[in-house]
């Protein structure tokens, strides 16, 4: 194989076949993909409701402590299925490559995607490759879609969130966003590592614990504050977060402080937020903490009834005052001092 991606790798001819046979098929190894038919026929769905999602991935830098574009692209879609209460099953993996990309880097993404799929227990059964001329894309963009099945009887969603619910976080927040931003600005330190991980088994552990789980989310873009906003808006409730209870590791706090960002708005890629019946919060925390990915779980807030005119999400500071957590107006921007 050439050292760099050529336009011909996306042409559908011999080089495309080489890429598929030498890189994708062995890494993602499963019979449905290996058949290389126009559509994958992975088998019959287990009983339950179908869950289907898609997500596009662009990350700078494409390789970061704790993951890479490929690993992230599988985790993102698996997690969207998992927090919807579904058992993730099959994914597609499509990639748009910029001419001149080092094949070695693509190999890293493919290996990352394969590793995430193995960890999540899903199969990548379909894929596509396009190559665009140099300058028309930035390295590599990945698009994944995934299907899963919500077991019969399960019903998870923001419509079930009600006053009295506890809001749980499965671990320290802001780790992915802070790590990536630190890399971009040359602030890297060994203490920073993306939390990027598939959440399927953690979500299952919580669902199977017997606790009444009302909703789950993975706080990606926009972070915990934005996710809470969405939940509060959709359920017509008010969410009160306790600043002191929100787990933020010191290196993440330091990077955010330096870059003028609030950790509550910084992306996580391997954290679960769960809304559970208030009086079962302790049991839910035990279930989360018993799982290796939930060791740092904490109850970070409560759901209350919202009176007209009240802000949907507020943060109680350690001084007892309440601070409104609003939606970000646009992209989080560095500020002038």
């Amino acid at each position, binding site marked *: 194989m050439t050292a760099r991606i050529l336009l011909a790798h996306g042409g559908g001819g011999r080089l495309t076949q080489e890429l598929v046979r030498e890189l994708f098929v062995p890494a993602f190894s499963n019979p449905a993909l290996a058949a290389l038919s126009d559509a994958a026929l992975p088998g019959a769905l287990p009983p339950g409701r179908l869950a289907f999602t898609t997500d596009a991935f662009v990350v700078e830098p494409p390789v970061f402590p704790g993951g890479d574009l490929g690993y992230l692209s599988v985790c993102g879609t698996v997690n969207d299925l998992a927090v919807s209460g579904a058992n993730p099953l099959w994914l597609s993996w499509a990639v748009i490559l910029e001419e001149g990309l080092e094949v070695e880097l693509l190999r890293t993404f493919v290996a990352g995607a394969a590793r995430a799929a193995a960890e999540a227990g899903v199969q990548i059964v379909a894929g596509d490759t396009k190559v665009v001329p140099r300058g028309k894309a930035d390295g590599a963009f990945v698009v994944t879609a995934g299907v899963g099945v919500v077991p019969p009887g399960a019903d998870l969603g923001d419509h079930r969130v009600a006053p009295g619910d506890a809001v749980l976080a499965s671990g320290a927040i802001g780790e992915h966003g802070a790590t990536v931003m630190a890399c971009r*600005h040359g602030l890297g330190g060994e203490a920073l590592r993306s939390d990027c991980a598939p959440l399927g088994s953690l979500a299952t552990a919580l669902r199977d614990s017997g606790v009444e789980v009302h909703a789950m989310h993975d706080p990606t873009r926009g972070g915990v504050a934005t996710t809470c906003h969405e939940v509060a808006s959709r359920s017509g409730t008010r969410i009160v977060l306790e*600043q*002191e209870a*929100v*787990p*933020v590791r010191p290196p993440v*706090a330091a990077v955010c402080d330096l*870059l*003028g960002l609030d*950790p509550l708005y910084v992306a996580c890629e391997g954290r679960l937020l769960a809304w559970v019946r208030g009086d079962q919060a302790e049991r839910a925390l035990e279930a989360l903490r018993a799982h290796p990915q939930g060791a740092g779980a904490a109850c970070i807030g409560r759901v209350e009834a919202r009176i007209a005119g009240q*802000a949907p999400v507020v943060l109680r*500071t*350690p*001084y*007892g*005052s*309440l*601070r*409104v*957590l*609003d*939606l970000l*107006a*646009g992209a989080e*921007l*560095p*500020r*002038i*001092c």
Partner: protein
Amino acid sequence: MRPDRFGDPAAVRALVGRIGRLAEGLPRRVTFMEVCGTHTHAIAAAGLRRLLPSRVRLIAGPGCPVCVTPVGYVDRAEALARRPDVIVTTFGDLVRVPSSHGSLERCRAEGADVRVVYSPRDALAIAREHPRRTVVFLGVGFETTTPTVAAALAEAEASGVPNFRVLAGHKVMPPPMRALARDPAVQVDGFLLPGHVSVIVGARAFEFVSSELSRAAVVVGFAPTDVLQGVEALVRQAVEGRAEVENLYTRVVTPEGNLAARAVVDRFFEPADAVWRGLGLIPGSGLALRGAFAHRDAGLVEVEVCEPVEPRGCRCGDVLKGVIDPPECPLFGTVCTPAAPVGACMVSNEGSCAAWFRHGA
């Protein structure tokens, strides 16, 4: 998110208690102004206003560099960015500041080359990468920011990067403080002095607040206990009828400041009159590039700029002077929100209106 020792809840409670007891001895309601955007943000983020007794009012002054940048400056930056041979580099929050007819953000979407950087040195690196284009850095900010711009200019001079220029919009704090203290519409009993600015200029630079303006002032840091200690000192001065300048941020602020930083600023910049959004022209309140560095001055690059159009109904000026609280502006929260800012005070995190909108009073 546990606060560090400077935000220790027990210490905060103790300070709030002490301020409450001291405030009982106040002859009337007192108003203190913070003139640093980072203070505005810190006060809002910790909800400190709501912890203070009703006789102590904190108001935000013109301390957010983005907010006081006049429309005409953004118009010029836009005009520069529209030239194909120019790359405009800027700190992030300036890209969303409304200009007469748009913003740098919209200008970028239309094809202009506008890049957000964290440091003027990043802009210098871009200039090295693009030797055939002029790289303009938007020099906005107070005494804290200017040395970093001056240092980038020094590096450009020393290492021969001819295509790096600065659009100087730098401002200094003492002249607007004088103007505010003398404005009969503004009632200020004391100032919380800008901690970061003081690191550069030194606490002594603010002696005029007591000697000339007969107002109390304290240099303070940005943690909740820092700010509250400052408020406590100002209340005590008010109770005792004193007007002195105290430095409570001695862990980083010295009387004379950072001499190296002051020297590099002095090498490249000289005092000039400057327009402040909402406050108008204030003599000696800006910094212009010295004549010897005209080849670095992006203000001398010829572009067509129309007469600036100020947003109608916007009361940023009164907000910046502390004459009104943001919700008293007719546009606040209706036509002017962080998502669609009309006035500059709604753009930056540090802007009074944005802080008020996001965090409540």
